[in-house]
């Protein structure tokens, strides 16, 4: 009797174990599925020096961000870990953070963070919520943080807008922005979305705007995950057109848009940019504006590029160089777009498509290498192709063909400037995509350390030296590049 009871209990025990195992497995699966569905959070930073985006990391259920990465595009910054302290120099301001503690000292004065300071692989992480209190002291100017939506405005940088229906045609909605904008336009039945990923567009007085128009009754403004979005509610399909140097966007019914364009009316587009009118049937097609230079930080996301050292990946070095190069080019009056401004995965085709869509005068891909010394400049080594009459179409694999002379001239100009700064430089051709797919002057810059120390690639001084020389080279040939088709 006892033996039978023991057997029954064993069976019950095993059944219970099985049930708990199944429940645990289901919970694990649910957690995995939920974590996969959550999009990566970003903080968009807007400043006069650069607009960029950085990933937010979750630690102890709080949002954190790398302080060094945040400050890098804004000025000269360096950090030193001296446990339990982490010291950061930004221009002439010294900040000291205590690892694992919320206490800090900025320019000799105490500061308290909203959560403890973290140090991970030499990377100093501060709570996003504390940026509004510590950044004004580090940067020496006002900072506005939209914590919920992940947007940070450094200085008086905000772009404001007004929206009103045209008095003579209530089916036309006119947006006026205080500075040029380049939103992504997408549509779905009854709605048009203008998404501003890079522009510091801020909310109007009321987030909901109503109009005395049956065709366009209202619009709403919202912010989320580092982007601002205007949703226009409409009862008819609308087209977007840009004018006034991309400071005015007009949403109008498709027919009236085509009629006004055909009649040569006032709708003007930015020079050398592709058609900016988007039919409602083309959702998610980006509207582009003109940039002089496209800087492409190679690799990114899962593609880490070369492992330069145990802690230094090529993708991080190229991103740092790209941001500095943008600063250098823009300080010389050359509008610049960084194609990959975060740790994103971009295919080679996507990079070339984006570069071609923008119709920039020059495309610069950035690479980093551990072998050799100095800088290597590459122009495209075109693949084998058979000449045949393709009419108005250009082959994707040899799109660079007609721009090769200009690319070589650009490479020569950059090489001259690098030599002036006594940087070892070598000019070569290379079978390196997407150079051959770009239909404007295109070069790749591969930066190696000047001496044996690979960590020099992460040094702000070396990055500054190289990007400044590259920007000088591009600037020196700007008149030739500007005349490019």
């Amino acid at each position: 009797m006892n033996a039978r009871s023991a057997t029954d209990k064993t069976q019950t025990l095993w059944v219970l174990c099985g049930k708990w195992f199944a429940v645990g497995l289901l919970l694990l699966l649910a957690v995995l599925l939920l974590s996969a569905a959550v999009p990566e959070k970003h903080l968009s930073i807007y400043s006069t020096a650069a607009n960029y985006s950085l990933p937010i990391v979750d630690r102890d259920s709080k949002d954190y961000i790398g302080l060094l990465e945040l400050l890098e595009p804004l000025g000269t910054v360096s950090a030193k870990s001296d446990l339990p302290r982490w010291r950061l120099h930004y221009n002439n301001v010294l900040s000291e953070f205590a690892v694992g503690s919320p206490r800090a000292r900025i320019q000799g004065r105490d500061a308290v963070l909203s959560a403890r300071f973290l140090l991970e692989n030499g990377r100093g992480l501060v709570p996003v919520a504390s940026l509004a209190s510590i950044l004004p002291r580090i940067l020496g100017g006002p900072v506005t943080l939209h914590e919920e939506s992940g947007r940070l405005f450094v200085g008086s940088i905000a772009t404001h807008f007004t929206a009103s229906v045209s008095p003579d045609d209530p089916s036309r909605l006119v947006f006026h922005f205080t500075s040029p904008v380049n939103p992504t336009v997408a549509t779905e039945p009854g709605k048009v979305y203008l998404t501003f990923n890079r522009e510091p567009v801020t909310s109007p007085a009321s987030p909901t705007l109503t109009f005395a128009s049956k065709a366009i009754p209202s619009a709403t403004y919202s912010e989320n995950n580092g982007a601002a979005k205007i949703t226009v509610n409409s009862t008819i399909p609308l087209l977007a057109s840009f004018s006034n140097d991309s400071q005015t966007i007009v949403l109008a019914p498709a027919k009236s848009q085509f009629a006004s364009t055909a009649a040569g009316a006032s709708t003007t587009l930015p020079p050398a940019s592709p058609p900016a009118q988007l039919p409602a049937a083309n959702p998610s097609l980006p509207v582009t504006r003109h940039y002089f230079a496209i800087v492409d930080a190679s690799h990114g996301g899962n593609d880490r590029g070369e492992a330069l050292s145990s802690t230094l990946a090529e993708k991080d070095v190229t991103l740092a160089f790209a941001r500095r190069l943008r600063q250098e080019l823009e300080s010389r009056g050359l509008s610049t777009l960084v194609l990959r401004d975060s740790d994103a995965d971009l295919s080679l085709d996507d990079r070339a498509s984006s570069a071609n869509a923008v119709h920039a005068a020059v495309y610069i891909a950035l690479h980093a290498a551990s072998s050799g010394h100095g800088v290597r400049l590459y122009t495209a080594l075109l693949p084998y192709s058979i000449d045949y009459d393709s009419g108005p179409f250009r082959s994707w694999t040899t799109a660079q063909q007609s721009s090769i002379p200009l690319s070589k001239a650009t490479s020569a100009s950059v090489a001259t400037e690098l030599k002036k700064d006594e940087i070892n430089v070598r000019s070569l051709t290379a079978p390196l995509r997407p150079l051959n797919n770009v239909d404007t002057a295109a070069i790749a810059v591969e930066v190696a350390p000047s001496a044996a120390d690979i960590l020099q690639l992460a040094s702000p001084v070396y990055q500054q030296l190289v990007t400044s020389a590259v920007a000088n080279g591009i600037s020196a040939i700007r008149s030739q590049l500007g005349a490019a088709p």
Partner: protein
Amino acid sequence: MRARITIPPNMIPRYLVIAVFVLLTAALGMSFYAWHMRGRAAAVPVAATDTRPVVAPVAGPTEQVTLYVAYDDVGVLRPQSARIPMPSVRQQRAEELLRSLIALYLDKASPHPLPPGADIRGIYMVDPGLAVVDVNAAFADGHRSGVLAEELTVASFIQTLAANIPGILRMKILVEGKERETLAGHADLSNFFDVSAVNQLTSQLQATQ
């Protein structure tokens, strides 16, 4: 007088608890041991466990050929004369040329090291003027990443073939019989190489900086 031991009805017998505990400990111990052994096996260098068959030596008269050898330290390509057995069939000649080049790169004193186990699976000469080189996964997966490092490998292969086997106009490199986007993140393998363009590249690569 002997005391009677009774097991309360809601209690698991001790022998069962001990048995489960022993089994669980054994299972955990074996898992840990297996995990430890797996780690050790992974740490053993590939070359030591490389048991792939060695290609049979080629018989036939030796010939003087020119190999274009990459030198990483100065980032150049230099022509180098060698005498190797060369069969009469074009395809086998091409394979022999590249195997000689790879043997040079796999040597301890290699000027341009390739990963252990790197080899070609075959070369296919497709008329008119197309050579398709199929390398193995070890070749591409373990290749060093970098524009110049990858370019030197590609140029060295193409120039060596073009210099010794006339009539090759274009070349394609496959990895394990399949098309691959890049060799190790940089050199484009998705297109056909134009041999005349690589000739010009070789001239650039023969000059030191």
